[in-house]
């Protein structure tokens, strides 16, 4: 298992390096005069030249990349060109907001999708039909539409929740709960319906396998077959779906955070990209890649733990 994890971590580092080099090259070669963007439309050519020198934009690309990489390895991701705030600081204040939201949504999706998916697969009949219809309806409504709907009804008309985030250092954890509730619901509805559908298919597939028939013929109870054998075999498919949903959610959360004005990674990514604040954009990209690598690794480990066959292969 340790060898397996080490191998996965190693390939993760290679991916990180390749993505960073590619992103750096693409960003730096396609973004024109950053200095003028920073200084605005009143700037003189002399001001622009001075700013370019300050930012080190007069250096060759390769020199700049390796300087960035060297700093990044030691934990220094540079500072925003617009605000001078260290990128590591920006990420440190924003990742907790985004991650709290994503992981809360993910845990709820996992629980709800598993319960609904298994119920539909085992029960079939009307339960299954309701889940199927729910999946179509849930998949066809984007999260941000749900978000706007929730704000209009629950925040503006009923006043049960704040319309935009109230998260700040001067308020306690309850503000986090109130501010996160609507965004989390907006995020999880698609996930639950989509996840339940996939888990349902995986469980049905297992229930139709020969080994289930054999177990039944030997008189083993349905409950034992389901919990000891079927769910364990269906788990990898479910986990893969959930991990893909989590990675997809990193994109969806950008819009949700904008709607609810949550101080997470979304607004940071949007603002930095719009301004070509390249050190920040690089920081955001690195964070995303690391999350994807870690999630995939965790899913692989969990799969291996649940199903020894995966470990061997």
């Amino acid at each position: 298992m340790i060898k397996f994890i080490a191998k996965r971590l190693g390939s993760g580092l290679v991916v990180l390096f390749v993505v960073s080099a590619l992103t750096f090259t693409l960003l730096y070669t396609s973004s024109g005069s950053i200095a003028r963007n920073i200084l605005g439309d009143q700037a003189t050519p002399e001001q622009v030249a001075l700013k370019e020198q300050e930012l080190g934009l007069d250096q060759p690309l390769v020199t700049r990349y390796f300087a960035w990489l060297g700093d990044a390895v030691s934990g220094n991701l540079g500072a925003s060109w617009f605000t001078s705030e260290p990128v590591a600081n920006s990420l440190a204040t924003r990742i907790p907001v985004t991650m709290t939201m994503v992981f809360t949504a993910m845990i709820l999706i996992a629980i709800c999708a598993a319960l609904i998916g298994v119920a539909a697969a085992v029960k079939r009949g009307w339960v299954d039909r309701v889940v199927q219809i729910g999946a179509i309806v849930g998949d066809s409504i984007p999260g941000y539409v749900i978000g706007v709907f929730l704000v209009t009804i629950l925040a503006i008309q009923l006043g049960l929740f704040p319309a935009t985030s109230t998260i700040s250092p001067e308020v306690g954890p309850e503000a986090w709960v109130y501010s996160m509730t609507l965004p989390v619901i907006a995020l999880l509805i698609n996930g639950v319906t989509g996840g339940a559908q996939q888990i349902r298919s995986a469980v049905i597939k297992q229930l139709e396998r020969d080994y289930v028939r054999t177990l039944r013929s030997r008189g083993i109870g349905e409950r034992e077959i389901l919990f000891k054998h079927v769910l364990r075999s269906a788990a990898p498919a479910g986990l893969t779906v959930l991990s893909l949903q989590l990675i997809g959610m990193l994109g969806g959360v950008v819009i949700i955070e904008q709607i609810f004005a949550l101080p997470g990674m979304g607004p940071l990514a949007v603002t930095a990209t719009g301004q070509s604040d390249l050190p920040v954009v690089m920081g955001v990209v690195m964070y995303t890649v690391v999350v994807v690598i870690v999630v995939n690794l965790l899913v692989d480990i969990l799969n291996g733990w649940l199903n020894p066959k995966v470990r061997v292969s």
Partner: protein
Amino acid sequence: MKLGPKAAAAAIVLSASLALTACGGGAGAGSNAGGGTAVTALTLGTLRDITSWDPAQAHVGHALQPYQAAYDSLILREPDGKLSPMLATAWKYNETNTKLTVDLRTDVTFSDGAKFDATAAKANLDHFKKANGPQMAQLSSVSDIAVVDEDTIDINLSAAEPALEYFLSQAAGLMGSPAALGTDGIKTVPVGSGPYVMDKAASVKDSQTVFTAREGYWNKDLQKYKKLTLKILIDPTARTNALVSGQIDATLLDPKNGKQAEGAKMKLETNQVDWSGLLLLDRDGAKNPALANVKVRQAINYAFDRKTILEQVMLGQGTPTSQPFGKDSGAWTEELENYYSYDPTKAKQLLKESGFEGKVTIDVPTLPGAETLISVLQQQLADVGITLKPGAAITNTFTADVAAQKYHALFFNLFQGEPTVAIDQIVSTKALYNPFKNTTPELEAKIAAVRAGGQDAGTLAQEVNKYVVEQAWFAPLFRVNQMYYHNDKVNVTPQAQQAVPSIYNYSPAK
């Protein structure tokens, strides 16, 4: 299976309730939802956080408002644009308008305890000149600053600058503690003499900035609240939701979101700050020979039915105009307002006379959000035989692209500033929006007269305005209404030439 319908139903109910309760937290969220609803607290929705609290990095309009909370400026700009004493008690030019002598207050201290005096004022102006901030050009005509005595400075100019007093009410006039200028600390925490001090512990970058009233502030008339919160809401939908749900007291919206705010009984203050229209940049025909012909440029102007476009596309939020200079600038004249009335027949006639009939094609980049407007312009120009080709959307390299003469015409919204500000933005050879450096000796003379005009600069700029309108340098369509909404707990006075009012323009509603 042994799971009966009851168990299955229970599973669904359980999961649904888990989803709602686990993340639902509890009841009573509304008690925590409001931010600035107390009479002594003001919460404003702002469009973005500022980049640095160094006063030399201050910008204009909505990017100036946060600085006004923490910093006083030398001169106070009243809502109607009139300049009044603030840290400067009086100021006077010499006869040649090349030296401004400024008398200063003697009873002001900064939030770090340092005293405001002539040396501090000089340190700020010197810092502004070399800090490479976005408005550094405001002091480009200043050659040096001399300390005359403890409460007097002389600002010496290399050439007359009629807008200098205005600049001293803007970014260039903000005064920070001399001990903090140039340090890293002032980038994140302002150190000024303004009506409020930042509550660093309660502020979160890009989310909210919290201020509390400064004890013993010298001008109580400008300090109307005990607490001021600037809540950063980039998304207009979020700003609208925050306003109508009572989280913020006032914010800037657009016509579409404004409808929702009006439905929730929010009050509207409109103010015209920008003009919207075409900039026909290549007036010497370097890349598009047709644009060198004044008759072609005039034909473009006659092709637009400004009133109908404004009603249909902008929901009537603005005023049709043919001139690029603003109503508050002094350069505006009634006779130029409808200089180019809608006259497609005249447009066709002018094109015929120009010899470019059927041969005029104008490429413009697409301005995000203005797609509908551009397609209407395309249609109206096509009706007189001119082809408008919208290209790729402008990107974050826009200003560099303009400077590099990438565009020979543009559709854009531009700020309408003081005469010399506007001239150096769109008319003079150093203006970004004159990338082909078009000029004539006649125009140069008119611009020189404005620069040396002192108090008469506005009136003299009418000549520049007239010249560029007659020569059809642009095809202005309308002055756009900025739509600032607020609730009934606060009174708001709009500020001339600013989409967002100055911080002094808010007061608790009685």
